[in-house]
């Protein structure tokens, strides 16, 4: 075995001494230079490497047959956790600060006394008995570099002095000390120590849930910055631009920044998930609100994407027409987005006459310019149904993973894209017949030919616009892999008809059609839609989406528009998110695991809290994960304790101490620095949001309120208000500055939490003219301004509440999932929408057991109430709960849930 030690390293001492004492056959090797921790390493012949000095010492003694005892273990642990840190600090004090032996050893006092006590109480010569053990070598090895000889020990530590001297004189220790601790070696070690931060002793850090301030975030302020911030503050609300109210409908205005924002169109046969919501509509909404606050002329449109095979199959399943399905889900979507306070200027849909007109126009222009190709495709045809089967109308065994219910376009199990004709054992989804492969004609968009137009446009858009890194990357890899002609027609009925002979029974493929929805939805909003969509000179277009939609927006749709050659507005800024994951143990195969938009409402957590949390973990740059406990944590720490606490305190001080009137302010240098600090955060907020870094900008808001809390905490206005004239003036200044910070926070928050922002506006009576964003922090609530009634903005989320939600939405099949249409595609065609709870897998033993227990528990509870003659209303509620549980249990057991009529009702 080879022992590598660094010359001068104090830890080398004990291992060398131990090797000597245990007569271990080691070969010494120098430590590789630049081994930073300066600790010895023992390489065993087996290849195992020991890096802990105590374990190395232990090993030498073990190899000689000396087993560790409770006592040696205890000494070794004590040495590692208590003595070692103190000895290092003492050594540092000696070598770096030049303190003398005894002085430096003072810190060791208690520990030395501990050794003394043990030795004298046991009356043994050595630490763990009457013979030398590993414990003696280890403790001596740590003490020796600090003490050097026993004379530096206080004389009352008699037993320790004796032990220490006999150790130092032992051959192994003496040799080790001679070889390691030559003065020169210690100097070398000193050089190393000087580069290290001083060792800190027993730092008891308070645990906190607050995120630690990032180092270096507190950069020094310059005098100019402070002066500028004070000037801006003094200019007051008059310096703010007037909030601009656009005419309705919003149309581009010459000389203004005209921002057109789209969110990827949610597909109509799904209830949107939290992931959909943060991925597009909510992100786009936050940005749109920001743009409006900047006085940019902004139009935000979205709508449901309604054509396509999924709608048609869904309609067949539910026994409705495709249009009925679309109507139903369009209303569900609109409801959910209304609840989430999404500020669309217009929320439309793709099944409108404008969609047909515009899509067919683009098609005709592409055809006329020779950008469409015709080709024969081998496709599955069901002879019974007399139709070619579009991807979703066929199921079969996946050719890659042999999953038996793979769809014609994609396998749900392995996720691979499938060409429908490659499915093994294909089946027609409608009649379960076996389809045959037949040739059929289709139209293709000639992407290779369009590439020469695409490339220069992309280059220009990337140079001038903000595309997220993933959008650029995905686009680049698509083009690198080579563009191929892409089929734009499908054998379906539910879609925009292809206006060309020979194709009249076909419709446009949804991905040719869907992005055209942006145009047609705008057309339904205003007949002057072309002023937005054929106006690249005046309009800046932002597309928001999740990353899986990137190629359609960066390659295919731009190619369609470039080929159609009609001065279309093409995307300038493509903002793509990564994925939001749901972290939970239960794996559910069916698609649609997680929390859906309509359920968020049922949680009882306000929409603004959802908005905050989703934006706080917006998958910006990398995937993120939704977690219930984290939601609670962020609500309680960031919103309640930080933001809400600050705004509430600032407002309360004005009410309680100054009768609701903002007091006079006399700024001190500290206040001025705070103004500059807040201005820096504000500028950072703008910088980030201009680059659509929504999540990062939210951190700036929280940072400002953290500064605010600190400011209040340090200045203690609640104490000073009781003091002399000067103290009261100080309390006034601090309160005035704080309430103005709160006023600005209300504006900064508006894109994120519109209702909370409105609530603050109401409480502090912020003039509507101040609801505009500038780059300066100004005094918008001047002395004399009257505030309204101040009340708390946020509520604490309790552990029980969140645990209950986790259980309800987290695992298994929560009852509410039943309303999620995509939870399970049951073949039962014309059944009415399934009643809640029928989706629970019948016979799930875990569920049955859980419910049985709950029924028993609730039953006992009811009996208890009745026995105690509880109020009737209370008993009734508990009985209702019991009945509901029994019903769920019956369903879980696969029985017919015959709910007995509650007794109370029968009586009267």
């Amino acid at each position, binding site marked *: 075995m080879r022992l590598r030690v660094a010359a001068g390293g104090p830890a080398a001492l004990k291992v060398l001494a131990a090797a000597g004492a245990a007569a271990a056959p080691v070969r010494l090797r120098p430590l590789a230079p630049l081994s930073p921790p300066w600790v010895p390493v023992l390489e065993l012949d087996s290849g195992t490497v020991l890096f802990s000095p105590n374990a190395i010492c232990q090993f030498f003694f073990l190899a000689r047959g000396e087993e560790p005892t409770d006592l040696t*273990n205890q000494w070794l642990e004590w040495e590692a956790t208590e003595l070692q840190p103190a000895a290092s600090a003492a050594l540092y004090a000696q070598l770096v600060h030049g303190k003398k032996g005894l002085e430096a050893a003072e810190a060791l006092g208690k520990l030395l006394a501990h050794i003394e006590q043990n030795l004298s109480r046991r009356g043994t010569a050595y630490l763990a008995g009457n013979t030398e053990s590993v414990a003696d070598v280890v403790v001596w090895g740590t003490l020796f570099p600090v003490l050097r000889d026993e004379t530096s020990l206080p004389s009352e530590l008699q037993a320790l002095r004796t032990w220490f001297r006999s150790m130092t004189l032992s051959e192994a220790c003496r040799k080790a000390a001679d070889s390691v601790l030559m003065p020169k070696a210690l100097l070398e070690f000193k050089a190393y120590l000087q580069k290290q931060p001083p060792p800190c002793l027993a730092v008891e850090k308070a645990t906190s849930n607050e995120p*630690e301030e990032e180092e270096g975030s507190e950069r020094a302020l310059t005098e100019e910055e402070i002066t500028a911030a004070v000037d801006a503050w003094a200019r007051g609300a008059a310096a703010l631009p007037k909030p601009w109210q656009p005419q309705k409908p919003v149309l581009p205005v010459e000389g203004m920044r005209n921002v057109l924002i789209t969110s990827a169109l949610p597909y109509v046969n799904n209830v949107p998930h939290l992931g959909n919501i943060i991925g597009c509509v909510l992100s786009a909404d936050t940005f749109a609100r920001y743009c409006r606050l900047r006085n940019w002329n902004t139009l935000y449109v979205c709508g449901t994407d309604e054509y396509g095979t999924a709608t048609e199959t869904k309609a067949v399943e539910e026994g409705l027409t495709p249009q009925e399905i679309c109507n139903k889900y369009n209303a569900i979507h609109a409801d959910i987005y209304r609840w989430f306070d999404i500020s669309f200027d217009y929320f439309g849909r793709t099944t409108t006459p404008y969609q047909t007109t515009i899509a067919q126009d683009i098609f005709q222009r592409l055809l006329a310019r020779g950008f469409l190709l015709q080709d024969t495709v081998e496709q599955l045809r069901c002879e019974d149904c007399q139709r070619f089967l579009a991807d979703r109308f066929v199921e079969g065994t996946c050719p890659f993973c042999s999953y038996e219910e793979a769809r014609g376009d994609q396998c749900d199990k392995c996720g691979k894209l499938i060409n429908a004709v490659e499915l093994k054992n294909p089946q027609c989804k409608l009649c379960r017949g076996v389809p045959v492969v037949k040739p059929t004609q289709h139209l293709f968009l000639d992407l290779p030919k369009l590439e020469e137009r695409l490339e220069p446009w992309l280059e220009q858009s990337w140079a001038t616009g903000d595309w997220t890194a993933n959008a650029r990357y995905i686009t680049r890899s698509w083009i690198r892999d080579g563009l191929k002609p892409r089929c734009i027609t499908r054998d379906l009925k539910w879609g925009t008809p292809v206006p060309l002979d020979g194709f009249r029974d076909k419709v446009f493929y949804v991905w040719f059609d869907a992005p055209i929805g942006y145009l047609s939805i705008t057309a339904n909003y205003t007949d002057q839609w072309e002023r937005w969509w054929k106006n690249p000179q005046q309009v800046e277009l932002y597309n928001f989406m999740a990353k899986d939609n990137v190629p359609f927006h960066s390659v295919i749709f731009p190619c369609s528009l470039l080929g159609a050659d009609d001065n279309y507005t093409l995307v300038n800024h493509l903002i793509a998110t990564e994925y939001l*994951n749901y972290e939970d143990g239960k794996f559910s195969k069916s698609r649609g695991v997680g929390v859906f938009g309509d359920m968020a409402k049922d949680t009882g957590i306000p929409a603004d809290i959802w908005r905050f949390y989703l934006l706080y973990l917006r998958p910006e740059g990398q995937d993120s994960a939704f977690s219930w406990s984290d939601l609670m944590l962020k609500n309680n720490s960031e919103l309640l304790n930080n933001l809400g606490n600050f705004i509430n305190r600032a407002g309360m001080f004005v009410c309680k101490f100054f009768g609701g009137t903002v007091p006079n302010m006399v700024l001190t240098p500290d206040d001025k620095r705070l103004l500059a600090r807040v201005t820096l955060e504000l500028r950072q907020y703008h910088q980030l949001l201009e680059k659509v870094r929504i999540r990062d900008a939210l951190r700036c808001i929280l940072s400002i309120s953290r500064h605010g809390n600190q400011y209040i905490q340090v200045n203690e206005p609640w104490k000073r208000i009781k003091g002399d004239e000067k103290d009261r003036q100080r309390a006034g200044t601090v309160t005035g500055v704080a309430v103005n910070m709160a006023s600005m926070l209300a504006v900064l928050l508006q894109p994120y939490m519109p209702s909370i922002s409105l609530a603050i506006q109401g409480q502090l009576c912020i003039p509507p003219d101040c609801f505009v964003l500038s780059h300066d922090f100004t005094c918008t609530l001047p002395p004399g301004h009257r505030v309204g009634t101040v009340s708390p903005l946020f509520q604490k989320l309790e552990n029980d509440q969140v645990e209950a939600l986790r259980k309800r939405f987290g695992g298994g099949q929560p009852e509410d999932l039943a309303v999620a249409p995509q939870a399970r595609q049951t073949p039962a065609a014309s059944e009415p929408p399934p009643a809640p709870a029928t989706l629970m897998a019948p016979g799930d033993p875990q569920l049955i057991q859980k419910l049985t227990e709950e029924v028993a528990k609730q039953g006992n509870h009811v009996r208890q109430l009745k026995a105690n003659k509880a109020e009737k209303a209370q008993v009734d509620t508990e009985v209702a709960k019991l009945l509901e549980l029994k019903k769920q249990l019956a369903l879980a057991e696969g029985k017919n849930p015959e709910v007995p009529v509650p007794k109370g009702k029968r009586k009267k």
Partner: protein
Amino acid sequence: VPVLQTNNGPGLTGLTTIAAHLVKQAKKDQLLGRTAEEKAVVQQWLEYRVTRVDGGSSKEDTRIILKDLNIHLEDKVYFAGNIFTLADILMYYGLHHVMVDLTVQEKEQYLNVSRWFNHIQHYPGVRQHLPNVIFIKNRLYTNAH
């Protein structure tokens, strides 16, 4: 620092000391390693637990610890190689509060630590009252349609 009051003697102080004592009492000596080498390795990780894992306080300390452990566990099932020892148990308890707070991405980043941790928490009798840490992730949504 825990103290164990025994029937004879002044009692024992220190987490690893007490743990090793109880292991011997229970006649599960194999948990302390069988050979001299294994014993030294177990000792080393017990020491690591009480000095590095318990001593680390900053996020940066935690990151370094996870990074080092991830490298160590790259080619090992357990801390001492192929046998389950007291080192695994005490490291499990020491790291639990760290693992609970990791994001999905971090769990993937420290894949070997995650794999080891998940293994240990399912080892019979180890987890006791601590909550199970989840290592599976489900995608909340995909936009495919």
